[in-house]
């Protein structure tokens, strides 16, 4: 059964098409990622699915309920963590949690097992006001508050934006624990490397989904051999290769440049021969498997 079903959703703000005919489904128990930059339409989709915003057209159901007709039923069944911290800053950790539990007609004790691992990390700060918590702790408290009524589906809008690598990793570990308990999770992120941690992803840009599949499938559909090259002066190499007529695309990626050729059957030697024209010092090239970010860039080029 589908936990979330979105069909031909359109949402415009004045002239801007924030969501442009988007359709997708999320299966029960799935960890589904919406991957894309700011302004891609991720937040609008979240707000439509959590019944906080009406679409111009199209339909959507969450846990089998219609987002327009059955909005009250949906609100009891979803947990939502918006991108901006939205707990009560002048209530303490404990007070926030109690408040959210009460609003949903439950108690902290009733679903304690669900939040236990996360809550115990912030419990020492029970009497601290939420506004005085660090970024990582705020994030944990917000997740506890979104979980306290044992939702069937969790919507997390950019939970890791601006958070450092260590906290991001911890957060994804928490999500995997929750997934094991059968909760469906829809999460958005601008960090392409986090895509690999989802069961399935939708790559989204300018309100449209460019590709939707498992991360492995998306990576395998990259249409051409991809190469990584570097030299002592990487900026010069970038300019030289990018201007070369045999090179189709060339962009910086970590310590290397990633490039594809116009011909289909090129290999490392083809690239070495091209580079040799510019005589770069310390040149290296190897064939590599594309990352989600390479796929995103390639798909953007097609749009």
């Amino acid at each position, binding site marked *: 059964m589908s936990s979330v079903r979105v069909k031909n959703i359109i949402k415009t703000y004045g002239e801007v098409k924030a969501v442009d005919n988007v359709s997708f489904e999320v299966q029960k128990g799935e960890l589904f990622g919406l991957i*894309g*930059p*700011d*302004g*891609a339409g991720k937040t609008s989709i979240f707000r439509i699915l959590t019944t906080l915003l009406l679409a111009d057209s199209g339909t959507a159901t969450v846990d089998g309920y219609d987002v327009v007709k059955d909005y009250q039923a949906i609100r009891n069944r979803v947990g939502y963590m918006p991108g901006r911290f939205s707990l009560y800053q002048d209530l303490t950790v404990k007070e926030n949690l109690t408040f959210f539990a009460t609003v949903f007609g439950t108690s902290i004790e009733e679903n304690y097992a669900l939040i236990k691992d996360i809550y115990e990390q912030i419990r020492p700060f029970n009497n601290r006001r939420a506004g005085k918590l*660090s*970024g*990582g*702790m705020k994030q944990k408290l917000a997740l506890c508050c979104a979980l306290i009524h044992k939702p069937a589906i969790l919507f997390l809008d950019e939970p890791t*934006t*601006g*958070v*450092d*690598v*260590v*906290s991001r*990793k911890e957060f994804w570990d928490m999500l995997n624990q929750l997934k094991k308990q059968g909760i469906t999770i829809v999460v958005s992120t*601008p*960090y*392409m*490397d986090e895509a690999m941690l989802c069961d399935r992803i939708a790559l989204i*840009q300018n309100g449209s989904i460019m590709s939707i599949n498992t991360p492995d499938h998306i990576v395998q559909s990259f249409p051409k051999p991809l190469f990584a090259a570097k030299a002592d002066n990487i*900026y010069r190499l*970038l300019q030289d290769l990018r201007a070369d007529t045999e090179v189709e695309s060339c*962009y*910086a*990626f*970590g*310590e290397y440049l990633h490039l594809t050729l116009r011909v289909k059957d090129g290999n490392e030697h083809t690239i070495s021969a091209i580079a040799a024209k510019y005589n770069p010092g310390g040149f290296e090239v190897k064939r590599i498997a594309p990352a989600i*970010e390479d796929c*995103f*860039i390639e798909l*953007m080029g097609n749009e």
Partner: protein
Amino acid sequence: MEDNQSPSTVGRQSSTKEKAIVCKNLTKQFGDFKAVNNISFDVDQGEIFGFLGANGAGKTTAMRILCGLSYPTSGEAMVAGFDVYRQQEKIKKNIGYMSQKFSLYDNLTVLENIEFYGGIYGVQGAEIKTRSNDLVSTLGLEKEAKKLVGELPLGWKQKLAFSVAIFHRPKIVFLDEPTGGVDPVTRRQFWDMIYEAAANGITVFVTTHYMDEAEYCNRISVMVDGCVNAMDTPANLKKQFNAHSMDEVFYELARSAKRTGD
């Protein structure tokens, strides 16, 4: 740590002139709390230097001192040849600063923003005009020049903010998480601009949460709990930590952090 490209100049009085930033035993204490704990490093003129650290590691505090906005408790630092204790105003004139959050005025037009910043930094009226026309055409913003900045897409705002930060041709530009939220293509266009600025001799001092971006830097330092726990080229750091990516290096260093916070 010594600069291995010009070891002969280390320790000589004149060497500080070729360094964009010299920082020695810099400490900033708030009560008992050492936000920045005895950090030392040099940054060369024209270098792209990545200043990384976990949330709460002390990056912002250190950066505020280097930008002439806050006094250290002890230690020494020279920025663009000026002393962080005695010459804060000279530092401010010789650096540029850009952060994702507050760099441009949304309710001024593109041209007005450029004019405003140019004026603040003492660029002459006629010169502002010439340079802003050049800038607008380089960025391809001719049609948007008279539009409010608030109406521009985020990626254009970031490029404009960077251009404005180096409009007065500073020796150093500080970039505080400059590229958050944009698509991967726009992010790379932004880095092309950073490379170009560095190739023109501007020192770039940058913080980022994108570890692949850390690898675009010539050298990186990683702060943990107020101290600089590692500093080298990305390639050497990966070798040192036997890691495949900067992500792993950062994780190894920062997971031992005791502090959390922003």
